[in-house]
């Protein structure tokens, strides 16, 4: 394949190591998914460093309090196995926080020592017959396979598999979101609302991770997906997985209960949002309402207005696979030229998506699936980019290449408002087109509105880190 050749060229024969990764570990994906559950507590079964690191990353991104419990394994418990620590942690969390659900994600450590989490959980439940216990769900998330994207997928699957029960049809549609900003989840809910369609959002971070200053005590999340909703997933009209990489729960529901699954694409950009609206209407047999058509028209209007500024710009895009592929499509729709696209996860679906888009849009970006930011930087040096889209880890690359970084994805720790970055649907698309084009105007045009032709000294603000003493 044309692209594959480029990929190997770019890889520098760096086969054994990763330099500046563009992916995280499975338990992080689990926590990302669990933050959208009501009255829940994520517990990572492993050494405490993992959960502290994850909390740190999530907190500095959302600028919201994030709680993740740990079983705090140490040298001794590593030798004897984690039963004591897991039982103790379950007891402490149950009594102290009384959540309705505790989801226990394994870590590399406990996977390597081979702890039987399901067995230990059963033992805990058997030992406490008269107590009102939370629902406890084990999730196997070893990080030495795949990435946080798969961790997210496995978590949704474990929740659904463990909890769903067939009762009566509910006329709802299950939406597996994948890890989105709260604003994007909110937009998906708005679209469903516009369609007059009720959804079960797996999982709903829209309130939990963009909470108001209330001056009142914070307990566990009181927004988000409920245990009842998880149970109800088997009774829905169908499942739409916005992330193709997080559709295993949908596959499970399809196989076991015949609930139709539509997998992807992420409704980012005009065509992808069209697909999503089509899927939803199809599942529920609905007409497209007028206000949605109007929003679509506004997005087209925004794209047309922006075109003269951005049509020839080269884009480099990195992040989670669904985000990158749909962003590649969206920017191509805008007449921009994707030159480098990079995701940390090794994913066939991703490469296929990029191939389809490349054919349709007649572009041929250097495609890095399973790539790291170092490879991406090398590729940018070779093929060039006028703007980089991705998380804060791209800042030093943008700085070095003297191009702007448009921040989207996770983590964003050097700017505010990560929870409010909105890109999905027609309305999110409008927001994106405006902000991206304004970034281009800020960077490549002078105050009189003329394109700056010569190289100018651009000063990009130094990365500022919020960080922890760890």
């Amino acid at each position, binding site marked *: 394949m044309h692209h594959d050749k480029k990929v190997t060229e770019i890889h520098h*024969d*760096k086969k*054994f*190591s*990763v*330099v*500046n*990764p563009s*992916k*995280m*570990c499975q338990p*992080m994906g689990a926590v990302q998914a669990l933050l959208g559950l009501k009255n829940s507590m994520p517990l990572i079964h492993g*050494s*405490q*460093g*993992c959960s*502290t*690191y*994850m*909390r*740190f990353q999530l*907190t500095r991104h959302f*600028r*919201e*309090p*994030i709680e993740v*419990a*740990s*079983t*705090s*394994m*140490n040298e001794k418990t*590593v030798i004897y196995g984690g039963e004591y620590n897991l039982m*103790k*942690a379950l*007891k*402490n969390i149950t*009594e*102290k*926080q009384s959540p309705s659900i505790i989801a226990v994600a394994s*870590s*590399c*450590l406990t996977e*390597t*020592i081979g702890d039987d989490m399901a067995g230990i959980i059963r033992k805990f439940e058997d030992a406490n017959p008269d107590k009102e216990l939370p629902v406890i769900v084990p999730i196997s998330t*070893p*990080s*030495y*396979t795949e990435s946080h994207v798969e961790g997210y997928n496995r978590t949704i699957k474990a929740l659904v598999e463990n909890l769903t029960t067939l009762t009566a049809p509910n006329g709802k549609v299950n939406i597996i979101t994948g890890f989105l900003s709260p604003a994007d989840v909110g937009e998906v809910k708005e679209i469903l609302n516009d369609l007059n369609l009720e959804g079960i959002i797996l999982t709903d971070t829209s309130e939990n991770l963009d909470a108001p*200053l209330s*001056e*009142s005590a*914070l307990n566990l999340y009181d927004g988000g997906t409920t245990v009842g909703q998880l149970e109800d997933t088997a009774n829905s009209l169908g499942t739409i997985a916005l992330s193709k990489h997080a559709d295993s729960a949908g596959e499970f529901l399809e196989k076991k209960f015949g609930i139709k699954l539509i997998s992807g694409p992420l409704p980012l950009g005009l065509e992808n949002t069209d697909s999503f609206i089509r899927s939803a209407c199809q599942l529920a047999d609905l007409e497209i309402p007028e206000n949605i058509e109007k929003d679509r028209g506004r997005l087209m209007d925004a794209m047309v207005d922006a075109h003269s500024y951005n049509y020839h710009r080269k884009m480099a895009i990195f992040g989670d696979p669904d985000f990158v592929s749909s962003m590649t499509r969206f920017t191509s729709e805008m007449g921009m030229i994707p030159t480098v696209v990079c995701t940390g996860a090794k994913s066939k679906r991703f490469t296929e998506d990029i191939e389809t888009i490349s054919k349709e849009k007649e572009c041929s970006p250097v495609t890095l699936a399973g790539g790291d930011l170092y490879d991406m930087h090398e590729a940018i040096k070779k093929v060039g980019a006028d703007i980089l889209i991705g998380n804060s*880890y791209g800042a*030093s690359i943008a700085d070095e290449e003297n191009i702007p970084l448009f921040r989207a994805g996770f983590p964003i720790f050097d700017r505010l408002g990560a929870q409010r970055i909105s890109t999905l649907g027609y309305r999110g698309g409008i927001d994106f087109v405006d902000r991206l084009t304004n970034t281009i105007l800020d960077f490549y045009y002078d105050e009189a509105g003329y394109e700056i032709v010569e190289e100018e000294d651009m000063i990009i603000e130094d990365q500022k*880190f919020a*960080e*922890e*003493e*760890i």
Partner: protein
Amino acid sequence: MPYKLFDVSKPIPERKEHTYVKHCNDPEDCIPKCNSKTIPGSMTERGCAFAGAKGVITGAIKDVAHVVHSPIGCTMYGYGSKRYPTTTELPDGSEFPVKDFNIKYIIGTDLQESDVVFGGMKKLRQAVRETNKEFPFVNAIYLYATCTTGLIGDDMDAAAKEMEEEIGKPVIAFNAPGFAGSTQSKGHQIGNDTLFAKIVGTTEPPATTPYDINFIGEYNIDGDLWLLKEYFNEIGINILSTFTGDCCHNELGWMHRAKLSVVRCQRSSTYIAKMIEEKYGVPYIKTDFFSTEYCAENLRTVAKFFGLEDKAEEVIAKRMAKVGPELDFYREKLTGKKVFIFSGGPKSYHLSIPLHNELGLETTGVSSMFEHEDGFEKMKDRVKEGALVIDDPNTLELEELIEDYDIDLILGGVKEKYLVHKLGIPSLLIHSYENGPYMGFEGFLNLARDMYSAIYNPVWNILEFQETEDPDVADVTGEAAEEVEK
């Protein structure tokens, strides 16, 4: 009873021993239980030994490549997470090609299942080769064990030795897997031990002076080091080696040539100062540069060692003239405000007295994630009776504390900051700073300014929705609002 069990911690009675309410001045009697195994499920904020070794100790070194032998997570989370700026200057006058190389690059072995089953040694060796090829300019390569590699038993030292011979530059293994010890503190110690055993005494400085010091445990958070260095330079004291802020690999090798070791962060690095004293006879002193008083006092002590007292007085006088008047303004504004210090370790005893003596604040309590007995003794010693001294607190306890105690400001970390804000209380990042540096004279002024601006943020006065258009009903932060009305 000098110990307290928070209501939220009632189901975990063990937490009581970790929460001491000061009732006497005997340092031997009653301090919280600390540096012990973390209680599972207690919502600890503690980190792991790997984080202590790489994140705190070695992550500040500017000219080495860090290779984390781990599944993807540990590598990723250790990437760019510390605010340890570095320059490109090297002591021999040459330039290192990348600024902030230590922040910008992390390398990992991205272990896969087959590596876990069959061992990751081959991959580690290849990763070192590749690192050396991609970053030929680094002066050493450091390797880090993590939980997984600690468990599968990869012999990191053997790999380091072998690769060092092959590539012809130092390769050093740090065996601090996350499960070692009870907090990140274990990683600090392993970092010290390893650097001492493998590097100290292996190189010679380009030049020496009779006024050479090792500046130990100063990591240059937000530029602290650069500020303190100015003072030393003006006094005529030469920092021969810094452990490890903005330092280079070779610099650590000649620490045995200094005349004196000045220990700044006592928790994380007294180890190496002691070892250098024992083996090479270089004496050490423990110091503290937070606040004008401590900074002046400690500059005097260090200067006295070299007979440079007069110079020190000049530097102190010059700086005090510069910051004094502004500090007076902040003292007036901050007097009587109550602060809780939720720090990782030593800042909980560095700050309580200066905040009181120089800015008029009262310390309601202090806490630490990873201090040991000696640190807690100092914490206890430096707060008033009735103040809380807590080991390994969690956010639930913090919430209760905010409700039950009168607190105007929390000095904490990023994991606390946003929780505290939701509750309507100002908070300031004390681990990594807001607009630092915070050490030294100008740094203390930065801290005072940041505290003032956090407490007097105008938003605190308009939190309540006004039912009527009566302008002077707003009274949220109490005193802050009174202040406004006056």
